[in-house]
């Protein structure tokens, strides 16, 4: 007889609401179910009521942690539809923001992972070193978290050349801290003991579940949208995709730590690139968005973000579809957690860096007493059709 251990939905440290049910026998997790929907906001629908310029502010708020990747993918998408070639300065600025975000997001994750291991020192230290990155954001964009930097065909604010030394200074400081953190994490026997061989995802698992981002790269699947479908300034600079083979939690830590070094290097090269471009050359004029369809991809800190937009020549998207990386990554929980002890399950859950805000879709409703599924797809469709009928009758 298995016991159910609920985690959430309002966990004091996992910042987003979600509910995990671990079905355990003794210490061992036999099955896992999760329930989301606490965070559903109907963004795709909302997007249809916003003009293209406004959609940027909306998609930025799909997820606060990767609040650049969504505008990034959306911009790529709209530029494909309108067939726009952006200026080099724009490309550099976009990449700088994207990579700064990767650093802040990976640091955030590292801190939370430390907390889940019961290692709060890591949490506090890492979040302390994350603050200078947020200061950089504040200096460049005016806000710590939602940057509002992107627009179709350009960016909203320039990075003036005289700010470059100040940015470089922060990066230098950051590199020292990264060395310190990498040393501390890589050599710590406790972290080794808690993460090596835990939550292993093999290459086959990753391919089966179509996982993306650092989760995939830590299992030896060499994918990265930045290289595979180049956008912004990534083809213009030198960098490499970090992979590891083991697929355990430790490998994921390693991949993320090393990726941060790559990000710093990308930013430095972009800053160099900025110096050769004319200041203020940050947008191309756009007359109108033609009717059409387009897709845009971007590599978020957690993996591939995918946007699809259909336009009809008007000012609004007719259909806007978003796929966020956690949506596929979360499914790997079934592989990584089943068979683990409860204490290891939490870190395995945290290891893919799940982000529920991105993931919210229509959730099933279960009857708490009988466990019966209340709604399935066709019933939902029927509900929706009935509702339309009802409204139609009313308006007649």
């Amino acid at each position, binding site marked *: 007889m298995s016991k159910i251990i609920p985690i959430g*939905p*309002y966990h*004091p*440290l996992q*910042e*987003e*609401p979600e509910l995990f049910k671990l079905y355990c026998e003794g210490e061992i997790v036999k099955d896992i179910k999760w329930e989301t*929907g*606490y*965070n*559903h*906001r*109907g*963004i795709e*629908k*909302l997007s249809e*009521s916003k003009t293209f310029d406004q959609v940027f*502010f*909306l998609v*930025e*708020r*799909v*997820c*606060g*942690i990767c*609040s650049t990747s969504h505008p990034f993918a959306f911009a790529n998408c709209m530029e494909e539809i309108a067939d726009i070639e952006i200026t080099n300065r724009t490309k550099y600025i976009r990449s700088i923001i994207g990579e700064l975000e990767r650093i802040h997001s990976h640091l*955030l994750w590292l*801190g939370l992972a430390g907390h889940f291991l019961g290692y709060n020192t890591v*949490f*506090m*230290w890492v*979040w*302390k070193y994350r*603050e200078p990155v947020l200061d950089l954001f504040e200096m460049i964009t005016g806000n*710590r*978290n*939602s940057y509002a930097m992107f627009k179709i065909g350009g960016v909203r604010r320039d990075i003036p050349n005289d700010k470059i030394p100040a940015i470089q200074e922060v990066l230098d400081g950051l590199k020292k801290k990264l060395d310190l953190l990498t040393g501390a994490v890589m050599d710590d026997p406790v972290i080794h003991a808690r993460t090596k061989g835990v939550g292993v995802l093999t290459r086959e698992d990753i391919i089966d579940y179509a996982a993306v981002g650092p989760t995939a790269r830590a299992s030896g699947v060499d994918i990265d949208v930045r290289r595979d479908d180049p956008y912004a300034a990534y083809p213009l600079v030198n960098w490499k995709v970090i992979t590891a083979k083991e697929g355990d939690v430790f490998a994921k830590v390693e991949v993320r730590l090393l990726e941060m070094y790559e990000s710093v290097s990308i930013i430095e090269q972009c800053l160099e690139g900025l110096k050769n471009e004319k200041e203020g050359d940050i947008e191309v004029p756009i007359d109108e968005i033609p009717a059409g369809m387009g897709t845009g991809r971007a590599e978020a800190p957690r993996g591939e973000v995918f946007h699809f937009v259909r336009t009809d020549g008007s000012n609004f998207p007719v259909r806007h579809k978003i796929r966020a990386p956690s949506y596929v990554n979360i499914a790997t929980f079934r592989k990584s957690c089943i068979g683990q002890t409860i204490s290891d399950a939490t870190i395995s859950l945290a290891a893919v860096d799940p*982000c529920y*805000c991105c993931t*919210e879709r229509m*959730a099933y409703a279960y009857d708490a007493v009988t466990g019966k599924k209340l709604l399935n797809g066709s019933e939902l469709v029927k509900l929706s059709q009935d509702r339309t009928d009802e409204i139609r009758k009313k308006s007649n």
Partner: protein
Amino acid sequence: MFHFGGASCNNCDIEILACLTPRFDVERFGMQLVGTIRHADVLLVNGSINQKDKVRLLELYEQAPKPILVVAIGACGCTGGIFAEGNTFAGPVDKIIPVDAYIPGCPPKPEAIIAGIVKLLHK
């Protein structure tokens, strides 16, 4: 303090967490996040509240030891913000439970959150 994250974009949640970390360190004011509402004197609510959250928020408020101070954080918490027109939106926090303080911003800076709560403590 107990933190209830509604249907948010996560930024407000992160900024609340940031308040705990060394740069801002709210513990110096004697504030701490607690694991259950039954230990809390302050309920922090952020994010727009959707249909699913509404029931849970009401339940939590019910369970909270009274008197409890409720703080609505962020544009979403105060008014619904950008998500107010969403199809799952169930009303801003103050339509569901009584609110003692509003901290606007999208997201509000940690300084603003701390200032808001400290003001409330003096009340």
